[in-house]
């Protein structure tokens, strides 16, 4: 097992290196760089552009160097925890995204927990009571949840929340706390605002998970080993938890790898609509303005999350399911 873990960690390094190279190339692919975009913008507004200043900036940011030199500079910075410099915000990337990452992670975690907490009981209920009225009702609501675009749901909820609870529209906290250090009041304000985006972001995931858990469980419930357990005289609830649920849960563990990055970037539209200070909107802006270190940092963080997430889910699967054997299998 230990050898397996070490192997997997070692394998992550080349994976991330390749991803970082692809990210860097992709960001550089559109013609021009951040400064040219900036110049074009200034010229269109009729401002004069000082060529000397531009040349100075270009050499300062290292934009005049060959691409591979820029890439390695970036990579060495990354390894040391320096994500580079954001041109647009004129601040180091670490400072620009620090607060946002925290909020994003809080939001993502809350949405994940919401998804699991809501979908598990409902999924189990609908599987056990297949074709009951409750099953039909939850399925109907679930399909609506799957089919409704998140941003639309966001708009609707924002309106009604403001109408009923008087919570101000948008944002993750009241305006007076933005940029302030964390305090009890600030945390309270975040909590007050948090639940709306959590519901919005979590709904489609919840609906999807209910459907899948139901389908998986239905498959397992009719398996012979469930009847064997019943024939032992075990109570229905204990059978359910010990056997079919345990078997049905594998795909959800395998999902961890894809859930993390999804929650981080998938909610861009919602974040824009609701004015959330998360990473999503910033990533879009940075890509538009070719703010390459900022965009690159976001992307590499996300890629790392995928790789780490898959690693974690593999470890959990290997621990939970004895049928998973480490190493290679039989070859034909």
């Amino acid at each position, binding site marked *: 097992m230990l050898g397996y873990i070490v192997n997997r960690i070692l394998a992550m390094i080349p994976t991330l290196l390749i991803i970082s190279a692809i990210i860097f190339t992709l960001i550089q692919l559109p013609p021009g760089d951040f400064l040219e975009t900036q110049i074009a913008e200034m010229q269109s507004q009729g401002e004069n552009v000082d060529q000397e200043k531009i040349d100075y900036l270009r050499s300062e940011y290292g934009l005049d160097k060959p691409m591979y030199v820029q890439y390695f500079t970036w990579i060495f910075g990354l390894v040391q925890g320096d994500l580079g410099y954001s041109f647009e915000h004129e601040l180091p990337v670490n400072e620009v995204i620090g607060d946002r990452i925290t909020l994003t992670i809080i939001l993502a975690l809350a949405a994940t927990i919401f998804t699991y907490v809501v979908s598990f009981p409902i999924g189990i209920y609908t599987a056990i009571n297949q074709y009951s009225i409750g099953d039909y009702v939850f399925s109907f609501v679930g399909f609506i949840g799957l089919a409704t675009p998140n941003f639309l749901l966001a708009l609707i909820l924002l309106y009604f929340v403001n109408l009923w609870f008087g919570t101000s529209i948008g944002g993750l906290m009241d305006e007076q706390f933005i940029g302030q250090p964390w305090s009890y009041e600030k945390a309270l304000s975040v909590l007050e605002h948090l639940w709306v985006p959590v519901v919005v972001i979590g709904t489609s995931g919840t609906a999807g998970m209910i459907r899948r858990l139901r389908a998986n469980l239905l498959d397992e419930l009719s398996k012979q*080993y469930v009847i064997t357990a019943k024939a032992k*005289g075990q109570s229905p609830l204990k059978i359910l938890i010990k056997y079919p649920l345990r078997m049905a849960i594998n795909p959800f563990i395998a999902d961890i790898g894809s859930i993390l990055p999804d929650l981080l970037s998938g909610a861009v539209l919602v974040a824009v609509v609701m004015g959330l200070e998360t990473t999503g909107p910033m990533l879009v802006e940075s890509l538009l303005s070719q703010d390459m270190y900022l965009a690159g940092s976001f992307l590499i963080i996300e890629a790392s999350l995928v790789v780490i997430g898959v690693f974690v889910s593999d470890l959990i699967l290997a621990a939970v399911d004895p049928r998973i054997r480490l190493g290679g299998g039989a070859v034909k």
Partner: protein
Amino acid sequence: MNDLLQVNDLRVAFRLPEGELNAVKGVTFRIPKGKTVSLVGESGSGKSVVSQAIMGILPKVARIAGGKILFADPKTPDQIVDIAQIHPDSRQMRNIRGGRISMVFQEPMTSLSPVHTIGNQICEALELHRSMSSSQSLEMTTDMLRMVGFPDPVRAMQTYPFELSGGLRQRAVIAMALVCHPALLVADEPTTALDVTIQAQILKLIKDLQIELDMSVLMITHDLGVVTNMADEVVVMYHGEIMESGTVEDIFRHASHPYLKALLNAVPRFDMKPGERLKPIREIKQDENNPILKAKRQRRAITDEDPPLLEVKNINKSFSIRKGGLFSKNTEEKVIAVDDISFYVKRGECLGLVGESGCGKTTLSKIIMRALSPDSGSIIFRDQENNPIDVLGLEKSELFDFRERVQFMFQDPYSSLNPRMTVQELIGEPLLIHGMKNAIERRKMVERLMDVVGLAPMHINRYPHSFSGGQRQRIGIARALALQPDLLICDEPVSALDVSIQAQVLNLLKDLKEALGLTYIFISHNLAVIDYVADRIMVMCRGRLVETAPKELLFKNPVHPYTQALVSAVPDPDIDRPLDLHHLISSKASDPALWPTPYTVNEATEMQMFNLGGGHFVRAGKGSDALLMSHLETEGAS
């Protein structure tokens, strides 16, 4: 009440979309204390439903519509419980289920949870029904595992089902059922999925434990050989009703009911006269004028001078199991699947291939089909004009043409047919692949093929799910026949079927062989079936050919210890010839290292096939002729 269990006028109904279906219509029988009662019938006769009703594990759509199931637990002698009246999930029923009445299921592969250890699953039963400390329950479970014959019970506690063979898994299931010392064991086809040698061991095990624990057994089976060897009383069911019941003597000596007689006539036996046909309960009817049947009759007559259709020489195949990861060193472990096998098949012959699961039968057939490549060896196939074809050297278009000549029939009629294709598409697919583009012609051909296998051509647009297992297997035959092959490889074609259906399919295969001039390689682990269809039989064990002979010689005079073990383990549906359960050759029989000389396989001796005369060959060590002959003489004398 003297009986342990009485079933009185039991009725079970299924709620189906098209209305209520009465699966069990007023069944009455008893299970005396300490005796074995066998419930016999084909699938769909309601025998499993009865057992589920006794256990209180009927499926959701079923309900007990009437009648009584009276259970007199010897532990509480004054009380008689009517199981039909208790709610199946109630505490009272749960205490009986698993504690006083327990069950062994048919499929050892699926009836254990794959993610829990054997020990955990057996202990669960103990913890539910006995109040004891966990160390005590562990001890009892270990004892139970030793009792059912696990060589190392302490280690077995920690193993997962997928690490065990089918026989050991079934032992684990039996241990689980018996660990609480129930008064009644319900065994639902406990040995159907197992090889004959293992079947004999499991039957012996159940019998021994029955005496040791003083329990009654309800044995549900469609294998009449098992019934005669196990049962004290027999209950015959058909369409949810009891046709006949009585002691095993009565039933088998004076079978009076036509259904039971028909059932007995449908089972292949060793003492069948040459040319005697099985009488299936429902015969297959074909159209006499079917052009397919007629055309093939004009095929060239087969003479003795014809060279063999297929010659297989020195085929070897091993699989390597890779161990190790991305960075660690890979170690390869070789498993020999086929070890230096040579044989031939004459034109128009049926060659039977026998052996237990995992002996390499299927691997060998796949090599002949060119679905797997052997490590070494050669295969020569002869076409209609007796031109030899080097099968292993075939490339692209030649290989494509060769595929028309050899077809395959699969074991599982359920998974071998694509559920999303109609019969027309299934049978027509080989025709389409091999160039019959005209849809009308193809449809005509498919209809004829359906008639050949006795399926109504009007069902041409149906999907496989609307056919029964036997009918599906006939669709498989029709598909294999579509290209008019010379050689048909049948891999356990009837092992998933009921006896009555089995007879039907076997007769069909026999008839088709005559009518179409086909040659078969017939793979099976059922010796009686092989005896019925085959002309010559090969016995395989652990990838090796151990004995081959014309069928008359092989079963009368098996020479190799493994063949002897196989033959003696077959339960015969004749009460005058019970299985010799005391002299059962244990699992040693299939371990080549434990065979007596000159049959022992080890690295020092080179093996070869010895000719015993009359086409009878046995595998033994080189240079052991004298030993072998003396061996045979003493055997002949005794």
